[in-house]
């Protein structure tokens, strides 16, 4: 884990309340899908943990949703502004655990880390299909980017304004994708439904309010099948079998 200064290359709205943030730094950046960065924001005491959506040779692509005062401040940040990040943080997804075909299941901004995961899977010669769930069509993000990689994307919206009306589990039932392992990131109720509905093994990316983000304050502990685990350092990605619903 290191502290590093990045500058904002672009910070653009891409869907309702959703921003795509491209950051550059001097020198190479090495991160895996499922890992996250912790961003210091001027005027706020704690950092904001945000999962990495793509890694550039000297930068990162992050997506964030404006949900509170911190992310509202981020939405107003201009190109060229500096941000101090801690990285890389957390465990990553395990694309190597997939035999042939992966199912990537995202809810809302949970789609973000699945983009980098799709790239990793394809680089390993595996196939991937994505199922992304949103409340409404105007929240959809990363679907075009995933399709551009050659990944088939099924959409579910709660109000039926795009794709299958209902939950990601409805879109999976409708699309019948082939997979031997799934990877999921999104709201807890969605991931619970996914884990209970799908028999295949899977990786689950959990979220919890964090203190240090780096494993030493024990502020984000969850109780797993193996006992208390830190979401920030032992996770955020856990095996489906570890997560107690």
């Amino acid at each position, binding site marked *: 884990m290191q502290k590093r200064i990045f500058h904002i290359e672009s910070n653009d709205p891409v869907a309702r309340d959703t921003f795509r943030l491209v950051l550059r730094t001097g020198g190479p950046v090495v991160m895996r899908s499922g890992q996250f960065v912790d961003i210091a924001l001027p005027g706020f005491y704690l950092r904001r943990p945000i999962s990495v959506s793509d890694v550039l040779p000297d930068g990162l692509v992050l997506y964030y949703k404006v949900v509170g005062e911190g992310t509202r401040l981020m939405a107003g940040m201009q190109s060229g502004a500096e941000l101090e990040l801690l990285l890389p943080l957390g465990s990553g997804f395990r694309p190597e655990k997939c035999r042939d075909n992966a199912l990537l299941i995202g809810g809302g901004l949970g789609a973000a880390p699945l983009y980098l995961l799709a790239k990793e899977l394809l680089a390993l010669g595996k196939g991937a299909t994505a199922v992304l769930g949103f409340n409404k069509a105007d929240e959809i993000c990363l679907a075009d980017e995933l399709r551009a990689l050659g990944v088939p994307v099924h959409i579910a919206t709660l109000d039926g304004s795009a794709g299958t009306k209902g939950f990601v589990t409805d879109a999976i039932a409708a699309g019948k994708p082939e997979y031997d392992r799934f990877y999921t990131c999104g709201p807890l109720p969605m991931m619970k439904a996914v884990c209970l509905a799908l028999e295949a093994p899977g990786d689950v990316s959990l979220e919890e309010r964090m203190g240090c983000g*780096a494993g030493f*304050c024990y502020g984000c502990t969850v109780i797993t099948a193996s006992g208390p685990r830190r979401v920030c350092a032992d996770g955020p990605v856990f095996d489906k079998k570890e997560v107690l619903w």
Partner: protein
Amino acid sequence: MVAKDLSVNLCGIRLKNPVIPASGTFGFGLELAGSVDLGVLGGISLKGTTREARAGNPTPRIAECNAGMINSVGLQNPGIDVLVHEKAPALRKIYDGCIIANISGFSVGEYAHNCALADACPDIDILEVNISCPNVHNGGMAFGTDPGAAAAVTAAVRAVVKEKPVFIKLSPNVTDIVSVARACEDAGADGLTLINTLLGMRIDIRRRKPVIANKMGGFSGPAVFPVALRMVYQVAHACAIPVMGCGGVARAEDVVEMMMAGATAVQVGAENLRNPQACPEILEALPGLMDSLGINTLQEIIGTA
């Protein structure tokens, strides 16, 4: 610039400098070994440890505040046996500074049991007894909020600890911290650490519920620094035993201020959580700050305010 002497003498133990990550904000040191140069630290106060392993409180355990944060980790820890047999020996292998075991308990007997084991562990240098825990035999009232209960813990620990200095870590959630401090000193404490966190709370106005699952938690960060400094000043002037000052320390200036208030060593807490390099950065800044203030030896500024 004249070479600066940052060393301090804490109960006969020479610390290369007074800067110590506070308990609960630095794990067992091991978690940060790959990211922080532990060797520069004067000491490390380890995560609070109870007799049995504890999973801690439900989440959310963390709430952000203006100039600080609330935590309600609930003493998640692997238990005293793991501390003395695994954590402390593992840290000693990579760190030669002062290792401080932070001991918690829910009864006087548990404090004594844990402290006896920590005293016998060759990889621990100082015992720091956290008396902010609720007493299960007295309706859950924290030991540290009553001079009599604080003295009872101190005396019980003092009776079983043969080797090492015993510091009592005081709670600020009291009307008169000096009376608690004096009670601990009279009961045989070798030193005092203060302050622990202030009891605080936040409410999520959208959900109309407390942010913290346990409703309340310990408030720390720069916002509490003036409160901590005031209490350190009062206690250092009222007691003859050394004080480790703690609470809202974030910069080299705060370290100097705490020492001028009477602290022999200074603990850095919440700041580690927002900046894991906080302690090394403070230590890097200290010699230059000392120079600008005309200080060559840190030890000589203790209690000069």
